[in-house]
């Protein structure tokens, strides 16, 4: 079995008496889509925040490509190759879609302290950015400011940014949220192909997408992972049915 890219061991985080993350262990292996599901308030976002570095865990380990990333901040983890998208789109609103992606390209090139060359004439920035936009189907919206994009387009733009980063693993926080059925379908197809490029840790409420895409599923309830397994394992897991899928499955 290949070494996991992302390896989380016994992670814990409490807010006062609330155990938001209660001994979570989880890994992400090359080539896979690992879906993380759970009811609202189960601690999915708290977990993502700790992985990406915007929240500090109380204890436990987070390794990325074998390296302990706990001492690193958000930016340093992103530079290692964590490509994160946000549950609520987080973009530079005044910048065009293209410039949002270009920012990721320049970050990947490790060159933000250049003061004189105009970026819009810098093809080493614009070309990869256009490429990433084309891959998510946003080419014709390249010059529109992020603030003016539709909700669905902003989600696509977030993914284009993660692509342009050359991420070694994607952390996608509800990428389908608020998308219409057509958009979700297109995105499902896209993510299906993306796993060959880099593995995906997918947090998603859209069960159709999860069951269609996931190689493995982990179920998070009250800060604990109550089950990890294939789609079939999870569908048939009694504790999962009771705690989460209930009668809706």
């Amino acid at each position, binding site marked *: 079995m290949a070494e996991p890219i992302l390896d989380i061991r016994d992670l814990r985080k409490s807010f006062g008496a609330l155990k938001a993350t209660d001994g979570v262990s989880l890994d992400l292996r090359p080539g896979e889509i690992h879906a993380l599901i759970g009811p609202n308030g189960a601690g999915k976002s708290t977990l993502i925040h700790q992985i*990406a570095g*915007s929240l500090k865990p109380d204890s436990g380990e987070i390794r990325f490509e074998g390296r302990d990333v706990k001492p690193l*901040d*958000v*930016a*340093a983890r*992103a*530079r290692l190759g964590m490509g*994160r998208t*946000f549950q609520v789109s*987080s*973009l*530079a*609103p*005044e*910048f*065009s879609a*293209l*410039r*949002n992606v*270009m*920012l*990721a390209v*320049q*970050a*990947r090139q490790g*060159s*933000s*302290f*250049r*003061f*004189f*060359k*105009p*970026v*819009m004439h*810098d093809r080493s*920035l614009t070309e990869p950015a256009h490429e990433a936009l084309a891959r998510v189907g946003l080419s014709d919206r390249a010059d529109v*400011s992020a603030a003016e994009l539709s909700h669905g387009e902003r989600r696509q733009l977030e993914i284009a*940014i993660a692509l342009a*980063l050359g991420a070694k693993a994607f952390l996608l926080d509800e990428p389908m949220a608020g998308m219409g059925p057509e958009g979700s379908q297109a995105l499902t197809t896209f993510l299906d192909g993306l796993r060959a490029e880099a593995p995906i840790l997918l947090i998603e409420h859209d069960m159709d997408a999860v069951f269609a895409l996931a190689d493995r599923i982990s179920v998070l309830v009250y800060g604990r992972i109550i089950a990890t397994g294939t789609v079939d394992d999870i569908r048939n897991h009694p504790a999962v049915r009771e705690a989460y899928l209930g009668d809706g499955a």
Partner: protein
Amino acid sequence: MTRETTISIVIVAGLLAAAFIAQAMGETFYITLATRMAILGLAATGLNIALGLGGLVSFGHAAFFGIGGYAAGILATHAFNSEPLLLGLPGTNQMIVIWIAGAIAAGLVAVLIGLISLRTSGVYFIMITLAFAQMIYYFAISWPAYGGEDGLSIYVRNTFPGTNTLAPMSFFLICFGLLVIGLVFFALIRDSRFGAALQAGRQNDTRLAAVGIGPFRVRLVAFVISAMMTALAGALFADLNRFVSPSMFSWHMSGELIVLIIIGGVGRLAGPLAGAIVYVLFEFALGGITEHWQFFLGLILLAVVLFARGGVMGLLAGRARHG
């Protein structure tokens, strides 16, 4: 060329033309007014890097303006007295040396202030920058070696190779030249990779960090560059008045620099200069009518903030575009 660039060039050229017209009419006083506009425009352009591009509302840029001014005053005094300054180094009356010294001194202070203040944001940042500038203000008042509260005179304007700086037009051209360099520098930074990171940080620093660029370092560098440009203007201001005093460090000065940017247009290339032109004209015109002109300045400023957002550049060139 964008409309913004065109209008910026027209404003800059207009200032130059105004000085030449004043020269032709023999009105040296108006040349001095134009010089004042150029210097304040440069100071505010420096602040515009931090405030306009980076969203860093520094209420302490008078500190850097004053450091530039005192660099000119102190170096000139030592050159005048022929007393060594520090470690046996002499003073100087060469503007170029003074500019470099002033900018470096301000840059070093900006590193220290930035390291502490940039760990915070929002209102904290505003108040902390204000407090540090105030600290330097009180230091200048209570340290008697260079005049203390009374300030320091520069008996002969410092020199620049190849010109007679005492001629108003020559000194204007020096200031104007530095202003143009400052504006070009601002435009280059704005359009560069560094500028992209800086502006993205203003809009959304979570996003900036998520692509792997740490906002802190970007902001610190911007803050230092911004301070150095404002210090340069401060050195010119000292030479214009041939006098420096702690009032260059006062919080009114910091407020005035922000006011120039707001009147002109935040983050706009020629915004600070447009603001400086309007401000100096206003001060001159209204100051001639009533000694209480600041009362009316307050009213107008209030109206601009409440009802006319975008400033002069917003009126002339429309809303800002970001590629």
